[in-house]
């Protein structure tokens, strides 16, 4: 039971690892331990853009939130807030991407802007995931019926292993990032 929550939780772990990795890279650059690898940072942004937008948020909106909306009035304010954040996701990631491009063009002078954009993005993402894990999950466990779960789980499982991407492209992107990111964040040099 609750396979769908397991899948969401697993995707959160992957996203959290990626966000934490970006944060660690930026901290390393700031401390002078690392040189900026703009292509790597762009790949990381691509990951945290595409995986949530393509495979993660649509499932939450279409299945989990849709059912929970019918079963729990307590969940409504959280759902409405999360749905707004899902809609705003594209704009938020665009800001982060443009901050990276500005950093790439300006060099060291662009670092502070990118760092601030990343910090803002991370804060929003942590809050978003925490709202889901700490408020939506418990309410869903409490209020959704067995029939609801069967329907939601079936829809989630029908996607196969969405975290890997339809043709394994997200798993490949994840591996590429891990192999490129310098130690100790990743396995690269």
């Amino acid at each position, binding site marked *: 039971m609750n396979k769908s929550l397991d899948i969401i939780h697993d995707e959160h772990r992957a996203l959290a690892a990626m966000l*934490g990795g970006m944060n660690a890279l930026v901290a390393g650059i700031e401390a002078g331990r690392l040189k900026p690898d703009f292509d790597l940072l762009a790949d990381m942004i691509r990951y945290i853009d595409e995986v949530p937008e393509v495979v993660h948020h649509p499932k939450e909106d279409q299945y989990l939130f849709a059912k929970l909306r019918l079963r729990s009035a307590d969940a409504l304010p959280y759902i409405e807030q999360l749905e707004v954040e899902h809609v705003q996701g594209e704009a938020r990631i665009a800001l982060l991407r443009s901050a990276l491009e500005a950093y790439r063009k300006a060099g060291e002078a662009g670092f502070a802007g990118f760092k601030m954009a990343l910090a803002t993005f991370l804060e929003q993402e942590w809050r978003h995931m925490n709202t889901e894990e700490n408020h939506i999950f418990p309410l869903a466990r409490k209020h959704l019926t067995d029939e609801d779960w069967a329907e939601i789980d079936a829809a989630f499982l029908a996607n196969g292993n969405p975290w890997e991407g339809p043709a394994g492209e997200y798993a490949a992107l994840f*591996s590429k990032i891990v192999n490129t990111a310098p*130690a100790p964040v990743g396995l690269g040099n």
Partner: protein
Amino acid sequence: MSNMLLEAKELHTYYGASHILHGIDFNIRQGEGIALMGRNGMGKSTLIKSMLGIVRPKHGRILVRGDDFTKAPTYRTAQRGIAYVPEGRGIFPNLSVRENLQMSARCGIDGQRNWTFDRVMETFPRLGERINNGGWQLSGGEQQMLTIGRALMTNPDLLILDEATEGLAPLIAMEIWRIVKEIRKTGIATVIVDKNHGAVTSICDRAMILVKGEVVFSGSSDEVRANPELIQKHLGV
């Protein structure tokens, strides 16, 4: 014919006067995955070491493929298709990546050679880039991959991973879990000792939780994941 690979019956293990394992029963069949969980110091690694003959239990029995291995040396257990990825990795620092892998190459107990040097390279492309580096030159994540690759080179039926992602950055840990998931799909039975319940229960079908050397939960991974109170009580920090 039984497909039981490894069993422990009523294991009691001591470190000196300290009673660590209190009558533990454990079993794993071919193709199964078991998540062995618990907070630090609860006896997870001691259970593994007891079953492999690295630590001798004072009471109880250990069966490997149905045969009594209670007093068998560790190498005999390894020869029966059980591979161990120890906590702390245990690579040979003065050997190259290639040598670390080649020294453990052998066919499985039924003569299978599913895991070749090339296949390990495909599974861990990063090791291919480091093939001539010494073990001491590898990062923690690379060492962990080498240790898993070395275990696979023995073509095991059972792979035991003890704290495989301990001390590794989350990105590397996620990558290792992804690879372990792929290894599981090949049908190798797996015991995974880890504190990350989210990761291990997504890989394994069964789960066992130890508290102070006793089994407080044994059931499906689904049951664990559906029970946040159980997780909080026994695994929460």
